[in-house]
């Protein structure tokens, strides 16, 4: 094959794999939005905290898998905490305060990490082989593959749990009609807390698989949050696996436009498309149309 096309394919594949990372973080947005119509703008900070927790656990000699699990437990606790202190109150007052409160909690997390773990980026040690894989001239590293597998894995796991456990079905019920769910004996607030905890665990998991690719640092959150938020909104905040497609598309589009137009323009076409997509389909490409009731 022509070297030029191989290069383009390399860019698309690399971007798509990174796009899975966006989708994974976006999935966290989706989980909380479905349950309580709120998203955590500090989600990126949860990813970062998860990554740092994972590094610390791995650094204390625990095997990788155990560190990941530990980070997820910590992430779940944090997700629950954010809902409790920042979101529930503001939603009760019916204002947009929760947007700011989640940003503020994220800011605190950033400061906390800077002072506890330091400001430097650091590599995340992983047990995977260091040498990249080669598919017909396209290199893919193991950590990149781990993102894709991990993202799909956790999404499938949570989606299955949503379908095949009562807690999951209850969360869906609360998202469809909280009052009717209450009538079934489901405590809406617990269901919402649960989805925030799962969202937090997913974020922490994201940190442990994204960290090995991007390195781990206090500022790793900012870029991720924005990209993931874009993916979540464009796919539709209630669209399940639409995220994966939107994520891969955004990641690949970024890489390809950076390659073709020059690296400074990397994000531009994606953003332009995003504004257009929203203008044409406000509920997201895969989202369901909202019926206004009066």
């Amino acid at each position: 094959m022509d070297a030029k096309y191989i290069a383009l394919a390399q860019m698309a594949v690399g971007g798509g794999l990174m796009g899975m990372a966006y989708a994974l973080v976006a999935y966290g947005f989706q989980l909380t939005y479905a349950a309580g119509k709120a998203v955590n703008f500090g989600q990126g900070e949860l990813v970062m905290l998860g990554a740092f927790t994972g590094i610390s656990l791995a650094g204390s000699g625990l095997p990788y898998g155990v560190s990941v699990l530990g980070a997820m437990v910590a992430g779940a606790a944090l997700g629950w905490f954010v809902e409790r202190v920042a979101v529930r109150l503001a939603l009760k007052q019916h204002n947009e305060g929760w947007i700011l409160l989640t940003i503020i909690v994220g800011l605190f997390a950033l400061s906390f990490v800077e002072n506890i773990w330091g400001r430097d980026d650091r590599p995340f040690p992983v047990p995977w082989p260091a040498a990249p894989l080669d598919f017909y001239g396209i290199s893919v590293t193991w950590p990149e593959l781990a993102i894709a597998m991990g993202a799909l894995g956790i999404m499938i796991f949570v989606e299955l749990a949503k379908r095949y456990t009562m807690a999951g079905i209850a969360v869906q019920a609360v998202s469809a009609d909280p009052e009717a769910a209450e009538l079934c004996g489901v405590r809406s607030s617990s269901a919402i807390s649960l989805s925030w905890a799962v969202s937090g665990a997913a974020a922490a998991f994201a940190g442990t698989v994204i960290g090995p690719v991007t390195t781990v640092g206090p500022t790793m959150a900012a870029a991720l949050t924005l990209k993931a938020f874009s993916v979540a909104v464009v796919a539709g905040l209630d669209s399940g696996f639409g995220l994966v497609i939107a994520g891969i598309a955004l990641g690949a589009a970024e890489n390809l436009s950076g390659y073709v137009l020059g690296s400074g323009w990397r994000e531009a076409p994606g953003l332009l498309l995003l504004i257009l997509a929203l203008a044409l389909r406000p509920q997201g490409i895969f989202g369901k149309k909202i019926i206004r009731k009066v």
Partner: protein
Amino acid sequence: MKASRSILAVLLATSFSTVAMAADVVKIAITGPFSGGSAPMGVSMRDGAKLAISQINQNGGINVAGRKMKIELIERDDEGKNDRGALVAQEISSMGDISAVIGTVNTGVAVMGDKYYVEKGIVKIITPAAGSASMTQWSKAGVKDLPIFRFASHDGIQAQMVVEKALKLGFTNVAILHDATNYGVSGRDDLIEQISRQGGKLKVVSVEKFAIGDKDMTGQLIKAKSAGAQAILIWGIGPELAAVASGKEKLGFKVPMIGGWTLSMSNFIDTAGASGNGALMPQTFIEDESIARAKPFIQAYHKAYAVSRIPSPVSAAQGYDAALLLAEAIHEAGSTTPSKIKLSLENLKVTVKGAIADWKKPWSKWNPSNVETHEAFRRATTVMGKVQNGRVVLANPSEKFVLEGTAVK
């Protein structure tokens, strides 16, 4: 009512006070990014300077016209942001009793803020910001009397050395990669200028940039690789440099990286790991205790801040030496007045033994047509360093004499 009035009084007094406190201290300000992306440089610089100052204070302070005066520090975080930097400069320059300022990492901050020092005639030693614009802005403006000095191997020197090294290694085709900040862009311009100045023997086959925070450099590297680059000349800071190194590894693109001194930052070396080996960069200082001159400083730093490695050794050593030079200038001026300190900085009589070198009259009277008059570093005081197994070592061990050097100029 009374209580609230007194609180108000406290607020006003503490925030807006311009009255000098005790008269037997010398007030020096340190500014730089102590938070955010370039914090490792800012913090190392600050801690290096503070180390020098605490050593001076432990010895009773500076002898100013027969009086021992302790140094009082004022620290301001400019967060690496230009307008915040400008406000910090405004604040410090209107304090009224500041003798001198040390600092600045980000060239943009220097460009935006230093004019306030110049207006007030306050002495500033820029370190470790290496961007050319920090000094050339004054020669372009034709400023006659400049209180700004630089204590860093500026990009002009560094670019010169990088190009020399590439030529020496026998390369003909190179790619330039740089970050999208002021530092990276001006570094790119310096490199291109140096290539033509050194005979245009290097062909730049690709120029690519990357943004702060980018982790995936495959696109830039594929272009460089397919254009046939034999080396990558690079201007950026730690985390992104590491991403370039690991991207090269991923693509199996085994060409050397030669770039600015920032390739010695720990956040590059640690993050890049094995893929960072072999990166070459100009150094004014290497954290290597086998160098006799550097050893006491390195040990003192490690002890004072309980670390085993300095985040940015160059910044730390430059901050340390800059503080020593400033203290000497105040002593020689016999005054805490900035204008007098400026005069003695331009004409230092005593050779100052620093962690980097013995500094003998590093600066001279400002000449707008020659920025070198206020630049302390020369080509000859800078060596090529190389990353090897997580440490920076001399690329050419025979250059060790430069770092051990007894006298410069």
